[in-house]
């Protein structure tokens, strides 16, 4: 039995603690540090993307306004989309999962701690890279979908699109290594007894998204690489005059783009599936059905990309196939919705701020779902697509299914991460301001779309009947922004002045609540042994005599170690030696980013040097170390 201040935990602390100061900051591979950085960085991008949205809404508030030039408007809506979709929505979920996974799974770190650090640094640098030309008025301006030939050099000379193309390839590296890490972590580093049917739904969501990303990201990386070559190396992949095919871009982009949409909502749905039941004081209804619906959503998600291209002149027969697939993908979402409603109905709701965010989310999810169902109908989509109806739909989906669960998740895990409670009343006020602001901003967009207002127009005439709706929308957008600001103020205040939190302030069931708040650097003093899906609720339920063990278990204090276990049943089969803190992820990220900067600047000399440096960092990283040799557990 290891208690908090025993000599053994002191030893563990020494083993796992990083260097102090800047050195530690640059070299840490602690998943909790990396997770927090992911979330904070993603929120900074959310704020930037939000300010861009407010500028757009200020321009559109009245007809014929000239606050922004057309070119500024193009850059703003492009960067708004790029920022929210690529630099906020997935990274914030990666942050949650990075922080939480080892705590949920009962281990001491992710499977590849250094790779984890690499994925963060590359994400950060790719984000900065994507923004490097924006302050000079040369930001990407072809929309986040970046259709060719508008994005080709002939129609878009200058560095705008090159920045986007290279930045996306760089970001793809971060996503890819991060996804690999999640998949291997799930397969390999769960605590003994944490069998595949006991892992929290957030884990299902993230691993599904990761597998999806591994299959989807190559399509977009390839597309952007081909675009860069078309622009700078004289190839003609997308140039119809030379036998290329503009629609090839659309296929590649949406083969990635649609699965990506599911990647940025499934982990958030997982947050709800795990945290909502805690505030309903019961387990999630239909765990297995929800887990399987998560996976099947992603599988089906690879068969619906053409619903972004219903108006591109493809034959009616193939459109009907993709239309049918787009209807069918609603079914797994229905499974999840009814599981949440049943959980609320058969549970006993506790009206915390987190509960409000999750319950609000269910409604927004359904509204975003039914508008998506309308656009699945091919001929109707010929009217709805590229109007404000679609903007309404995608914001109900992305804000409703990503932002609301994320904010609820912050309310829920804030005490665990910081050791302090958020101000509940303040959080509830910010929820209501956001909920009202959100619906005021985005519900009228459905109507505006049916009134025929196309997307991506920087202004409109008064005689088209769009003025009133636009004014209401702009007001709603600012209210929503105020709500988010209130939430963030609450986070800062509570971080410094919140009441101290116990280990398990919500009476939750999963492993992270068995350790102190905030968690010690080594996570678990001993590796827990899991006997059920809800380890901390075993005494409250009549589910058999088996009890999980969170106080006794393997100590593993001979260096940075955690337990490796089998894929399905989580039988322990190896003690994994984990690498210590290292500057290599940072160095490799810097040199990799420098490669992309060299490409952007057409510097052959720079490209040679930076490529060599990247290669050297890679070799250094992979150089075999005796200390990391794995030891088979003696049976």
């Amino acid at each position, binding site marked *: 039995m290891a208690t908090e201040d025993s000599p053994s935990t002191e030893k563990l602390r020494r083993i796992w603690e990083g260097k102090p100061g800047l050195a530690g900051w640059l070299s840490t591979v602690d998943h909790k540090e990396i997770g927090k950085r992911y979330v904070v960085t993603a929120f900074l991008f959310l704020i930037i993307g939000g300010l861009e949205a407010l500028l757009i809404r200020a321009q559109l508030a009245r007809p014929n306004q000239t606050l922004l030039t057309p*070119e500024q408007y193009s850059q703003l809506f492009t960067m708004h989309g790029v920022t929210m979709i690529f630099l906020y929505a997935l990274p914030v979920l990666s942050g949650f999962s990075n922080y939480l996974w080892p705590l949920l799974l009962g281990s001491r770190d992710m499977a590849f701690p250094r790779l984890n650090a690499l994925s963060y640094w590359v994400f950060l640098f790719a984000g900065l890279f994507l923004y490097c030309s924006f302050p000079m008025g040369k930001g990407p301006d072809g929309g986040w979908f970046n259709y060719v030939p508008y994005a080709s050099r002939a129609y878009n000379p200058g560095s705008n699109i090159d920045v986007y193309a290279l930045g996306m390839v760089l970001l793809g590296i971060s996503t890819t290594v991060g996804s690999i890490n999640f998949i291997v972590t799930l397969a390999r580093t769960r605590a003994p007894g944490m069998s595949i049917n006991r892992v929290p739904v957030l884990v299902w969501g993230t691993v599904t998204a990761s597998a999806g990303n591994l299959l989807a990201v190559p399509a977009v990386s390839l597309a952007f690489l081909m675009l860069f070559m078309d622009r700078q190396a004289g190839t003609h992949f997308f140039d119809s005059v030379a036998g290329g095919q503009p629609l090839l871009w659309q296929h590649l982009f949406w083969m990635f783009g649609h699965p990506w949409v599911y990647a940025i909502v499934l982990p958030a749905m997982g947050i709800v599936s795990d945290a909502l039941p805690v505030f309903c004081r019961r387990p999630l209804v239909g765990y297995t059905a929800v887990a399987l619906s998560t996976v099947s959503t992603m599988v089906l998600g690879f068969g619906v990309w053409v619903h972004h291209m219903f108006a591109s002149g493809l034959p009616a027969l193939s459109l009907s196939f993709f239309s049918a697939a787009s209807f069918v993908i609603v079914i797994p979402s229905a499974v999840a919705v009814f599981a949440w409603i049943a959980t609320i109905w058969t549970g006993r709701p506790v009206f915390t701020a987190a509960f409000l965010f999750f319950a609000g989310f269910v409604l927004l999810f359904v509204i975003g779902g039914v508008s998506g169902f309308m656009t699945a109908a091919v001929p*109707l989509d010929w009217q709805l697509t590229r109007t404000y109806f679609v903007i309404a739909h995608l914001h109900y989906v992305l804000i409703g299914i990503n932002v609301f669960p994320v904010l609820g998740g912050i309310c829920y895990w804030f005490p665990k991460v910081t050791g302090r409670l958020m101000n509940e009343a303040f959080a509830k006020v910010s929820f209501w301001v956001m909920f009202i602001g959100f619906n005021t901003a985005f519900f009228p967009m459905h109507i505006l779309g049916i009134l025929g207002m196309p997307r991506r127009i920087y202004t409109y005439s008064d005689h088209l009947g769009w003025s009133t709706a636009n004014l209401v929308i702009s007001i709603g957008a600012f209210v929503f922004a105020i709500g988010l600001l209130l939430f963030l103020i609450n986070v800062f205040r509570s971080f410094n002045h919140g009441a101290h939190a116990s280990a398990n302030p919500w009476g939750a069931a999963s492993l992270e609540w068995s350790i102190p708040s905030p968690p010690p650097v080594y996570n678990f003093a001993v590796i827990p042994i899991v006997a059920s899906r809800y380890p901390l609720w075993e005494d409250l339920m009549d589910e058999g005599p088996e009890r999980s063990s969170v106080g006794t278990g393997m100590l593993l204090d001979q260096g940075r170690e955690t337990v490796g276990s089998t894929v399905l049943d989580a039988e322990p089969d190896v003690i994994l030696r984990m690498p210590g803190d290292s500057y290599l992820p940072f160095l490799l990220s810097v040199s990799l980013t420098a490669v992309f900067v060299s490409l952007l600047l057409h510097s052959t000399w720079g490209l040679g040097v930076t490529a060599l440096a990247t290669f050297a960092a890679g070799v250094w990283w992979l150089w075999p170390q005796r200390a990391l040799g794995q030891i088979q557990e003696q049976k």
Partner: protein
Amino acid sequence: MTPESLLLIGDLSMAYDHTFGPAVDRITSLGWGLAIVSLLVVAVISVLLLIGIFRKRASHSQGLAVRHDSGGVRWIYVGTGISTVVLIGCMLWTMVVTAAVSRPPQKPALTIQVTASQFWWSVRYEGATTARTFITANEIHIPVGQPVRIELSSADVIHSFWIPQLAGKMDVIPGQTNVTWLQADKPGRYRGQCAAFCGAQHAHMALLVVADSASDFGTWQQGQLNDIAEGDTPGQKVFETHCAVCHTIRGVSPEGIRGPDLSHLETRSTIAAGLLLNTPSNLAAWITNPQLYKPGTRMPAQILSGVELAAVTSYLNSLH
């Protein structure tokens, strides 16, 4: 010279809750049907959610609300079952409508070739001979009550052809000719607008479909086929010096293809792709400073003396 004056040419709504032709009417019904299903779903879920949250609980004992990790699964079976039946029904309806509107009910009376450019529309009526062929811009006249075939091509980037009250969107993609069709069952003007982001002035790439009675359409068509008489006016000289590089006037100056064909400009109700009402003062303002009204348009500003401007404006105003 305010854009509001465009209202002078009639109601230019793009709302498609109510439509005026067989290429869209069944889509509109489908849209209303799916919207009603959607609103019902949202209403039912909201009610379930609210009752679920606020219904009275038996007792507030300590511990969890249940003692077992089970129960409630019937919600998923029933809810998903009903959803699936509704989805399949809507899917079948969609397929029927898709098949019905994909092709016109009878052979189209007329084929019109529309070429989209940044940021305007060229419209070509193919005749049996070159003499029976003519080109106009940004306004498409069609005979009422007859299906019209539209062949779409692009001169530069991707655009999308959309006349909400007559036809759903069809993208205009370089390297391929996409075909769509429309039919107006009621005479009148129907506004359309490019629906695929195509650059700085995507916002001002409108077009009008004018549905005429058969006789009005014949008169209009005959008028468009007439050559403009070549004269010796100062206005024509200014046109030939400053405008003819990009703009064609049938019978006078056939070389310009970069900008809209201006033969019979005076028969059109708007200029600059639906941005400005076609009045002498708007025309003069546009010629001298197009970048003010449409920043990013390919049309360069013309440096003209007051006399030259008046001459060319009155010349263009004479092109009936």
